[in-house]
């Protein structure tokens, strides 16, 4: 194989890795939007908190002398999910529930306020500088001719792919089979009607925030390990990207969020392969604007019919 095609394969692998974590975060946006029709601006911060908790737990357990990596990771995952979910739940209770039914603009401003608050809360409690965790999972496979270009696929990347796949499969099963999942789908069809049918919609909305936050925590753990660095500002950009992914796939649609995340990740990786990497953000946002203009319902979303 030629150098170009090997290079392309490498970028594809990197892109799918980042893309699958975007997809995990994007599901939080899409589920909340599907039910209450609102962008949860603070969702990116929940992801960032997930990363911090992962770092805290790993560093804590390591200093206590626990060395078995799978156990450490499992404990970190559980604690990150619990903490992030609690944040997600609290955000909904404090900033969104009291405003349900009021003007959209007002709810949106409250959401932005919450995002700014959480970001600065972490700046104050953990400092604004990068926190670095030494690589926990190293090594991987390489293939291709070393004299031309060597494609590497690390164990970490494999872990991200597997974890994302399992999470998505679990979520799909939950939404389609369980009672809660059914109630959830009913809410996104017609919130008011579901309420009339005697289902506690407040509970369902809270649960949506909790599930979204849990997925963001998983993404926080995976990306934290992958990059090995976290700071209080990573949530802002990741949140924007994940939202773009959700819109790209069709906001409100869970498979759409998955597809959107992967497409966005690959697009970014290909952009940074041929242009200065700063421009990948420009490309992502331009993509967002273009989709909204030409296909506002996204790739898999249902077009909205305006009620007059």
């Amino acid at each position, binding site marked *: 194989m030629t150098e170009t095609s090997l290079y392309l394969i490498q970028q594809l692998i990197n892109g799918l890795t980042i893309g699958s974590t975007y997809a995990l975060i994007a599901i939080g946006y899409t589920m909340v939007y599907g039910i209450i029709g609102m962008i949860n601006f603070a969702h990116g911060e929940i992801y960032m908190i997930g990363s911090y908790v992962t770092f805290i737990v790993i560093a804590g357990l390591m200093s206590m002398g626990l060395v078995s990596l799978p156990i450490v990771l499992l404990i970190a995952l559980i604690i990150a999910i619990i903490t992030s979910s609690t*944040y997600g739940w609290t955000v909904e209770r*404090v900033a969104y529930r009291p405003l349900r039914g009021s003007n959209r*603009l007002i709810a949106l401003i409250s959401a932005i306020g919450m995002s700014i608050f959480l*970001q*600065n809360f972490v700046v104050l409690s953990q400092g604004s500088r990068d926190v670095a*965790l030494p690589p926990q999972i190293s090594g991987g496979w390489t293939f291709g001719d070393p004299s031309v270009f060597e494609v590497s696929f690390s164990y970490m990347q494999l872990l991200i792919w597997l974890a994302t796949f399992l999470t998505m499969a679990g979520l799909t099963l939950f939404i389609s089979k369980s009672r809660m999942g059914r109630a959830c789908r009913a809410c996104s069809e017609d919130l008011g009607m579901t309420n009339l049918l005697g289902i506690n919609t407040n509970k369902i909305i809270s649960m949506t925030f909790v599930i979204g936050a849990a997925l963001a925590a998983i993404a926080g753990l995976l990306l934290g390990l992958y990059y090995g660095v976290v700071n209080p500002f990573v949530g802002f950009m990741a949140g924007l990207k994940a*939202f773009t992914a959700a819109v790209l796939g069709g906001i409100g649609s869970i498979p759409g969020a998955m597809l959107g995340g992967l497409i966005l990740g690959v697009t970014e990786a290909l952009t940074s392969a041929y242009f200065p990497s700063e421009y990948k*953000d*420009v490309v992502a946002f331009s993509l967002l604007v273009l989709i909204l*203009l030409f296909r506002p319902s996204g790739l898999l979303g249902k077009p909205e019919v305006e009620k007059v």
Partner: protein
Amino acid sequence: MSKIYNAIFAAGITFVLACLMIGVKLNTEGTTLTVSGASGEQWSWIVGGIVLVFLAQLFADRIDTLFGKLPKPKIGALLPAEEKRATLKPWLLAALIVGLLVWPFMVSRGAVDLATLTLIYIMLGLGLNIVVGLAGLLDLGFVAFYAVGAYTYALLSQYFGLSFWACLPIAAGLAATFGFILGFPVLRLRGDYLAIVTLGFGEIIRILLNNWTALTGGPNGISGIEKPTLFGLEFTRRAKEEGNVPFHEWMGIDYSSSYKVIFLYLIAVILMLFVVYVINRLTRMPIGRAWEALREDEIACRSLGLNRTIIKLSAFTLGASTAGFAGAFFAARQGFISPESFIFIESAIILAIVVLGGMGSQIGVILAAIVMTILPELAREFSEYRMLLFGLLMVVMMRWRPQGLVPMKRPHLELNQ
């Protein structure tokens, strides 16, 4: 019983929120990452917080009734009666303007400098108020237009030697053009999409400024930007241009660097008054009514032959041009600009000003801008809490007083019978 259960639950939630994120600190030691517990003082804060939440939940209804009994402040009652106000208004206005113009000669340089900064935020707040308050469009990338204005003046002055006064309308016009180009496609979108797209646009502009090093100087920015002149008179010790006389020589007085500061302040006052006048007129014009109507019922507007895209676009463009205006002045005052000045946080601060003041209310926005720029200066030891409080303020305001401190009172047009 359920009350106690609720209170315990809330306290538990608070504990989960706080124990790791506040209670444990991450430290980097060489290449390893270690953790340490927070100081005893911080833990006592955490415990205090948990107890507070527990008690607040336990006595929630009693606290609510207590708050219900508190008299609501009536700002309207403090003002004189309607007819009296009408006769008083021109006098008050005149006194205020004279005060604004005379005041800087009596105070310190630092105070005048701070006042100039406040005036910039007032202009930005008023500009965003057109978009958010009057037209009801949430623009989260407002700072991008501010940046366009600032870089327009900086670059035109650096490359073509154009003066501040020539660049002022160009900067406003260019910012408006950017607003138009961005707004035309995206204003058809729903409100929350608009918020995200403008946020993305703000980031794009910042990234471009940071990376287009050949033109913008990248992260190093542009320095040595010319200061404005008074009909060609410079405020430097010696004239930079051949044959030019500096202001102090022309006046026949001794050189003082505070003349320049006061002069900049006076320009800011004039620009601010201009912006206030224009917006004041706009709210009384057909376009101002159309903004309000569109906010109330878009479908009715369309059925009456109003082109919503054009009407929203006019608000978006006017807001952008105000930011461009303020940006050009900002560049001239600082003499140095870099992408650092145009990050998302700036947009958020301007939005907080509009929200605190009262969406749509001009007086409210002006007061909020003064409070928001002067308070952090007065309470410097709390400056690290500034953004935290801004975020909190936005949530709290939306929950308890979404109309802001000074709710908007739109001038009603009356039919004389």
